[in-house]
């Protein structure tokens, strides 16, 4: 039909396909001046969709395909000229006749085009501002109870409309749209908006992976049914179909039945790059219980409590003293089966270590609001802002620092120096049957307080000791994770897989497995004897900045720069929980010793507490004013310590934070949370260093708190 033909000719002319245009025009017997029709879309590559039904669109499409075929033959693969009509053309049929719908997607590169072809529809660019402000007006005039929920729409709509304008190359309209409305957005989106303001051309969009992911993944909004009905009615009765299109394409509205949420509740949960979490994302069963400790004979001391042969694991807490008579032979329903994932067997040295652990546990200080831990601070001097990672062994005997000059330095915290094992010739001379063979294998000549390990070619961003203190892991900006032996102080393996900086790594609490997360937005699970990862946890939209194992080694928590925390199942790599609510990249994670709760800290200075079983936020601890880089629960889970860039260590009452949780059906079903404003009550103490940001926290086996940081002179 005529209009389609005119549009096609227009397109051909603009693409400089003169020959094809001539052919077509001759066929259609049209004159040149018909083409100057002002009714056509103002964009250069607009194909005017038929005003009527699908049939027109189909013929237009067929025509265009024929022309395209001719064009490609004629041009022979001009990089930018392959055009095809998008499937969205059929949807245009819904557009009222007066509007210009549909657009032609110019496919540049196959992978990017799949993503960018999400923008296959566009309205008249000059009207975008009008659409947005009319929606704004509507929302502002709606009832109070609905307004908070509907206001969630502003941000994703703003971003998507802006990106559509940019993608379709309406630079000036995009700019004025941005100027007018970016101030209305919530304050916690300001960082994103700043990045967005730098994307002014279509080419900019191609390079930015995070933005591309944002566009393909649907932004999730949780709205109550009443508010949703209101919105739908409004959008469909007015001719604002552009907004409705965007809502359908790019937003996922998770509807729940119940009371609309208040602004406060919403503010607590939003902030991530992809909105909130869908309800079914947090529905999978998670085995958050702890694994049973194996039976073994404990050498009897004079303490009778240790006479137990088996340590039963009561469900809630893990106090070593209460190895009560009810040796719970029953499997804890929340604990994973012992052989769910293969774990290394317990060696003799591990058993000895456990015995030591239990003995220390007996002498452990019970902490509480009346009995706060003493804090011992290890300050790294002369690090020149190069200290990037710290770890301390479980028995607090060694401390390792990863530095920006790519060295890894290990210190001995106890008076016992670090020794390496003797050379092979010397080892053949010692008496292998003697009792102190473990001492004899050490070479006294190499004893020193400090060992420096060279090998990385970039700043070391994460370090982790193995539980048996034989190995040390370090991950660096050079994309590798290195395994060092702490008996020879040499590098054993370099695990290559991330080709981009690796931000964090950690050994599993049972050894053998370790996890690493980096700039390529995935976390990987490795085993020390496999040179390739065993599991890849993909799903985050931005870098994975923090990775931690659950105490039962069956789950891994990852915090990311997209402001979400995800919990992954080691067995099959599935994401079982998504926690949103932080307003900045997450830099610290800590599981409670009983495995039920997770504490997370981010650049927004808040510590959020999550119930893993129910998948809900159960607490918010406000107080820090800068990024929280260290979080640790005390050995029995009574106190949560947090260390931050604001040079303070704060202690919070964990027992009180987790008691009396309202986790009734309503909360779980709707995800409504009611966070008490009790940060002040929970804060037990604030301890300031002079000017040393706190990078690491560690509770010794006797509940003494060790902290580490590098002195910075400013």
């Amino acid at each position, binding site marked *: 039909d005529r209009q389609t033909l005119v549009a096609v000719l227009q397109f051909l002319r603009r693409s400089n396909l003169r020959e094809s245009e001539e052919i077509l025009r001759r066929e259609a017997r049209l004159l040149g001046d018909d083409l100057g029709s002002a009714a056509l879309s103002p964009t250069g590559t607009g194909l005017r969709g038929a005003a009527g039904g699908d049939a027109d669109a189909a013929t237009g499409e067929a025509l265009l395909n024929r022309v395209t075929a001719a064009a490609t033959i004629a041009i022979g693969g001009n990089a930018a000229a392959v055009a095809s009509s998008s499937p969205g053309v059929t949807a245009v049929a819904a557009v009222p006749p007066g509007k210009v719908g549909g657009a032609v997607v110019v496919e540049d590169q196959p992978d990017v085009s799949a993503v960018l072809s999400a923008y296959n529809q566009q309205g008249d660019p000059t009207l975008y501002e009008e659409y947005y402000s009319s929606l704004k007006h509507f929302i502002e005039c709606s009832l109070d109870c609905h307004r908070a929920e509907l206001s969630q729409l502003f941000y994703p709509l703003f971003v998507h409309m802006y990106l559509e304008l940019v993608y379709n190359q309406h630079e000036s309209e995009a700019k004025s749209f941005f100027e007018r409305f970016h101030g209305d957005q919530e304050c916690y989106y300001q960082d994103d908006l700043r990045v967005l303001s730098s994307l002014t051309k279509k080419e900019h969009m191609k390079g930015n992976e995070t933005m591309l992911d944002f566009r393909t993944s649907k932004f999730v909004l949780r709205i109550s049914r009443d508010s949703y009905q209101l919105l739908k009615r409004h959008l469909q009765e007015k001719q604002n179909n552009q907004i409705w299109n965007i809502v359908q394409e790019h937003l996922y509205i998770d509807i729940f039945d119940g009371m609309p949420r208040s602004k406060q509740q919403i503010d607590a949960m939003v902030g991530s790059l992809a909105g909130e979490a869908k309800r079914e994302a947090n529905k999978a069963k998670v085995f958050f219980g702890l694994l049973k400790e194996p039976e073994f004979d404990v050498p009897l001391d004079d303490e009778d409590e240790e006479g137990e042969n088996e340590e039963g694991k009561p469900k809630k807490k893990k106090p070593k003293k209460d190895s009560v008579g009810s040796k719970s032979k029953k499997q804890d329903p929340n604990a994973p089966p012992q052989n769910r994932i293969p774990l290394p067997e317990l060696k003799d040295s591990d058993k000895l270590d456990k015995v030591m652990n239990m003995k220390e546990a007996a002498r452990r200080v019970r902490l509480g609001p009346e009995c706060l831990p003493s804090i011992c601070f290890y300050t790294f001097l002369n690090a020149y802002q190069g200290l990037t990672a710290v770890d301390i062994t479980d028995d607090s005997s060694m401390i390792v620092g990863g530095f920006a000059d790519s060295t890894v330095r290990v210190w001995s915290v106890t008076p016992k120096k670090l020794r390496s094992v003797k050379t092979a010739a010397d080892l053949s001379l010692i008496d292998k049957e003697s009792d102190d063979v473990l001492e004899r294998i050490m070479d006294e000549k190499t004893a020193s307080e400090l060992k420096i390990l060279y090998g990385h070619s970039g700043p070391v961003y994460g370090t982790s000791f193995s539980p048996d203190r034989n190995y040390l892991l370090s991950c660096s900006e050079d994309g590798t994770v290195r395994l060092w032996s702490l008996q020879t102080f040499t590098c054993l393996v370099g695990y290559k897989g991330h080709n981009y900086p690796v931000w964090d790594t950690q050994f599993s609490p049972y050894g053998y497995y370790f996890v690493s997360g980096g700039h390529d937005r995935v976390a990987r699970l490795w085993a020390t004897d496999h040179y390739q990862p065993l599991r890849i946890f*993909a799903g985050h939209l931005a870098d994975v900045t923090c990775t931690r194992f659950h105490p039962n080694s069956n789950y891994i928590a990852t915090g990311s720069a997209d402001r979400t925390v995800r919990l992954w199942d080691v067995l099959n790599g599935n994401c079982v929980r998504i926690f949103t609510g932080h307003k900045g990249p997450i830099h610290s994670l800590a599981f409670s010793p009983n495995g039920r709760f997770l504490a997370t800290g981010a650049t927004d200075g808040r510590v959020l507490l999550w119930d893993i079983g129910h998948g809900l936020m159960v607490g918010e601890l406000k107080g820090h004013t800068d990024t929280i880089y260290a979080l640790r629960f005390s050995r029995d889970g009574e106190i949560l310590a947090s260390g931050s860039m604001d040079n303070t260590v704060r202690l919070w009452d964990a027992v009180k934070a987790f008691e009396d949780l309202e986790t009734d059906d309503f909360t779980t079903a709707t995800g409504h949370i009611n966070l008490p404003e009790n940060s002040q009550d929970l804060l037990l103490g604030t301890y300031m260093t002079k000017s040393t940001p706190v990078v690491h926290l560690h509770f010794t086996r006797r509940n003494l708190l060790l902290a580490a940081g590098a002195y910075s002179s400013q």
Partner: protein
Amino acid sequence: METAKMASPKSAPKDAQVMAQILKDMGITEYEPRVINQMLEFAYRYVTTILEDAKIYSSHAKKTSVDADDVRLAIQCRTDQSFTSPPPRDFLLDIARQKNQTPLPLIKPYSGPRLPPDRYCLTAPNYRLKSLQKKVSSSAGRITVPRLSVGAVSSRPSTPTLGTPSAQTVSVSTKVGTPVSLTGQRFTVQIPSSQAAVKSATPTTPTVQNVLINPSLIGPKNILITTNMVSSQNTASESNTLKRKHEDDDDYDNL
């Protein structure tokens, strides 16, 4: 390092001011002062690279001047080269799905340090010792050994006259090298070897097979001793060539 002090408008060149403004617009408020220099350096280098590439493309297309398409093409080519970005999300999800399907491998019990196969580890020795035989003349100064009495056929090199023990761990190859000497009369002294594997060059248990002594070097000068760990005994050949008969790695005796 101090936080950045904004360069006073009088002293900073315009480019530096523009860069400082860009940093401020992108929300970066604290940075070391040299960051501006680095950013300017990068910007200059990047732009000149792109423009040079664009000039090449434009001349290749026989155009009279560089236009936007050339620049666009130059940017595209350079981006793929210098700035790689992480793989796209669907690709990651795909490989993750593949990787996560295989069950976790069972752990073999009691297998010592659990490390990948040796080729993937960094535990192999990263050096190899060269044989000295072909370089006897040229490397006369390489090994310096105080006097060795020539007549002491059965003298073990462990006598103190031989010098300082080495402290290295030496790996010994089992091939034999034909002792080659160059000038004058030579003595070949054969000392029965011990079969013990030499793992470390301790001063007490050397295995010396052939001792080649170049009499012209005897005295206050240098004596070359090569030791091979072989079971058979070699006789010195009268070859005058410098050609190496075998590629072998001889170890140095503790000297």
